[in-house]
């Protein structure tokens, strides 16, 4: 069997959207405005988290007054 490169993509369902659900232009504009830029405020968020042996949640704005490094990565148990 031919070996495939092991990536970290996840399967995504490809359900076609019904044509009526198309306020696409508005969405696109909102999307652009949401995207972060240097020199601008970092968008706030709250997310569930694992931290020092317990489950908690983490909110960016709770770190006001501190330097924060926010890192995203493709997935747990991936190779790099």
């Amino acid at each position, binding site marked *: 069997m031919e070996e495939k490169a092991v*990536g*970290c*993509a*996840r*399967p*995504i369902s490809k359900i076609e959207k019904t044509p009526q659900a198309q306020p696409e232009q508005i969405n696109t504009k909102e*999307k652009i405005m*949401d*995207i*972060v*830029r*240097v*020199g*601008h*405020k*970092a*968008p*706030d*968020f709250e*997310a*569930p*988290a*694992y*931290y*020092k*042996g317990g*489950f*908690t949640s*983490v909110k*960016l*704005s709770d*770190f*006001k*007054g*501190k*330097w*924060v*490094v*926010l*890192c*995203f*990565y*493709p*997935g*747990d*148990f*991936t190779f*790099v």
Partner: protein
Amino acid sequence: MSVDSQFVHKVWNDQELSKMAERDVPFHMASDGAGHVGSMYGVYDEAAGVEFRGRFIIDPDGVVQAMEVLTPPVGRKLEETIRQIQAYQHVRKHKGAEVCPAGWEPGKKILKPGTALVGNVWKEWSPLKDH
């Protein structure tokens, strides 16, 4: 932060990362299952359902000062992130009166922006000596 749940984060810490680093992960491992946070930060890849290696330095006022985004197969270099934080902290401490040229590290030459420096950076800073 990744699209994995906080539960998978725990197992990854316990089974692999803690063995690699010989200590537990000392910071929050946040879960962004639906990619909403990643989308706001422009690092969510809808086609693959995962997040790119996005790294954001956010200052004490909540302002993004630096960002770096890599595709999955290449890892980051931590020393560069630390260098950038040190440089931004220096600039902040001096309220922008001192800035950090290319390759700056703590102890290396800084520049003081002003009329006297216009056209004279070459006298103050050398890519060969000061970089």
